[in-house]
């Protein structure tokens, strides 16, 4: 029997019991669409986050701190109900307990091969931003960036800030609407007031509030950072000193706790990070962050697709049931086939192909439905919460996902068909011909 005949026979027989076949296929469809939709969402979101992180943390930058712990994203400790962890002597109780790097540290790092320059990593907190002369205040996230990093942001208007910039800023695209500019060009040259309240105010201590003035020189393309305002490192230092009420911050007396080292090629980032760790410091590259994200998403996707796999597993019981029923109905037919020359292996293959066809059809329909649902989710998200990210898709279907899910459901159904097929092939032809 040729492959074409096996397929012809399988589809003919499925068509004979349309309702039963459809219900069995439906079960596979549910499993296959669950698996593929959940995976496609995971792929889409991960891709989006990866792209955003790539934009925020360039691949040619190595972050440096006194200890590796600063960069650890941990899920240990009392959070999961375990017993309190013992802390070693040189370890702080808080994971984000920063200790300044020394001027010597910085010199050592700058002396490493492939390291071009180092800049302090400045964490900034600003209370609000408003247009000069306007009342409305808006939330803001300040980024103090060296010019080479600021240049990685795509602009829709104006120019980038330089390392020498003072009182100049680039605003996120989202502010255009907040400030009421029709065109990105309208924002250029406008003055902003960034209001900063000293950090000690958090503890109810007397604190000052100060306004910092900036001129808008550029407007960035849309990103997830819809409240980002980019300023130079020098401006960042000034704001940080006021915020922390510490005029010596970022000087040799009180060096930064986190440095960002620029490497003369992203291919050297891992090597430089290793060399920095050999100096007894902590280092992190964007690949490390992406690796963590990849791991987290891997786990999330595995858990999510497990639901789909369970559904496929349940569907495989339906396949077994359908085929066993079919054997009862077609016992005589099997007898006739054997009488006119079908071997055991032919009968076995006949039922295996029939089962696999259920999986194949279910897989195709399932992926098609998931694709349609994914497109619908993309469409809805673009007119609602993802309005500003035209190119981003929550649901992404790479070719390997489509092929993989169809293959998976076919293989699961094929495996389910093995037992019924074995049973059919072992029918005694004489008994089968007598079967009523």
């Amino acid at each position, binding site marked *: 029997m040729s492959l074409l005949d096996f397929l012809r026979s399988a589809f003919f027989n499925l068509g004979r019991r349309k309702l039963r076949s459809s219900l069995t296929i439906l079960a596979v469809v549910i499993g296959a669409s669950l698996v593929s939709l959940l995976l496609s969402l995971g792929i889409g979101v991960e891709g989006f986050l990866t792209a955003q992180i790539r934009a925020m943390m360039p691949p040619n930058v190595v972050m440096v701190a006194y200890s590796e712990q600063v960069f650890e994203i941990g899920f240990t400790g009392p959070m999961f109900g375990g017993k309190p962890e013992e802390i070693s002597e040189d370890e702080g109780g808080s994971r984000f307990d920063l200790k300044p790097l020394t001027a010597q540290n910085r010199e050592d790092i700058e002396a490493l091969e492939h390291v071009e320059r180092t800049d302090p990593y400045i964490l900034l907190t600003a209370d609000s931003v408003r247009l000069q002369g306007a009342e409305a205040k808006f939330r803001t996230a300040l980024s103090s960036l060296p010019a080479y990093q600021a240049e990685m942001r795509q602009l829709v208007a104006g120019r980038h800030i330089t390392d020498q910039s003072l009182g100049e800023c680039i605003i996120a695209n989202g502010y255009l609407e907040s400030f009421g500019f029709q065109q990105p060009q309208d924002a250029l040259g406008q003055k902003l007031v960034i209001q900063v309240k000293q950090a000690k105010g958090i503890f109810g201590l007397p604190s000052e509030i100060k306004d910092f003035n900036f001129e808008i020189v550029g407007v960035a393309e849309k990103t997830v950072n819809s409240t980002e305002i980019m300023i130079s490192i020098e401006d960042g230092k000034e704001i940080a000193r006021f915020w922390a009420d510490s005029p010596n911050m970022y000087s040799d007396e009180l060096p930064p706790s986190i440095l960002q080292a620029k490497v003369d090629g992203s291919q050297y980032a891992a090597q430089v990070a290793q060399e920095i760790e050999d100096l007894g410091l902590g280092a992190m590259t964007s690949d490390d962050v992406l690796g963590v994200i990849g791991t987290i998403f891997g786990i999330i996707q595995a858990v999510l697709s497990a639901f789909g796999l369970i559904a496929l597993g349940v569907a495989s019981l339906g396949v077994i049931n359908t085929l066993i029923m079919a054997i009862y109905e077609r016992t005589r037919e099997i*007898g*006739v086939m054997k009488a006119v*020359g079908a*071997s055991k292996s032919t009968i076995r293959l006949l039922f295996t192909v029939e089962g696999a066809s259920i999986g194949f059809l279910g897989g195709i329909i399932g992926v098609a439905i998931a694709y349609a649902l994914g497109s619908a989710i993309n469409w809805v998200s673009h007119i609602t919460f993802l309005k500003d990210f035209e190119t981003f898709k929550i649901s992404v279907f790479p070719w390997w996902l489509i092929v993989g899910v169809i293959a998976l459901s076919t293989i699961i159904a094929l495996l389910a068909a093995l037992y019924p097929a074995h049973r059919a092939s072992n029918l005694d032809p*004489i008994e089968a011909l007598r079967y009523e």
Partner: protein
Amino acid sequence: MIELHNVWRLYRMGRETINALASINLEISEGEFVSIVGPSGSGKSTLLNIIGGLDSPTTGRIEVDGQDLSKASDKELSSYRNKKVGVVFQTFNLQSTHSALENVSLPLVFARVPLRKRNQIAEEVMKTVGLSGRLKHTPSQLSGGERQRVAIARALVNNPKILLADEPTGNLDSKTSEQIMGLLTSLNKERGITLVLVTHDLKTAEHADRMIQMFDGQIAGAADRK
């Protein structure tokens, strides 16, 4: 052509062992028409099934056209059933959901003949059994005689040397039975097909060259009618 040497076929039924066939020695030569008669339970169908490769002897040897069936594997046996013998049953055993043409071409499917060629051969064979106008009919749309003709066409489609018929007229009226027997006899006489016919009807058995009488799993007698 067909040789059986000391063939036994035992069945176990609960605690009892039944000798469906006991020490059968039989030779049928090429082109011969042999009928096997006997009361029900005499073992004639079992004998036919063993010759047809649907059943295997418990002990003893059966050789057909030089091939030892008692030692054949499932693959060899199925190929034997496909190409060397054709079987016609009392109950026709047609596939009700398939057309007459599809029923006839079924053995060609297992012989890996491509679809177009299959239909061509099956149509040809249906013509020889007088059914050229019934290709697309399903078994339920055909009369008993026509159904048996479809079954005969199916048995003939791979051009076998041997045709086995198990009570082929058992479900037919006497007039149709005569026609079917006429068809089978002509296949034997004109095309030289070796024909083995099982029946309990002596009148039907008389068409044969040789009549073998069975009783309790043994050959009780033979009558040469030539």
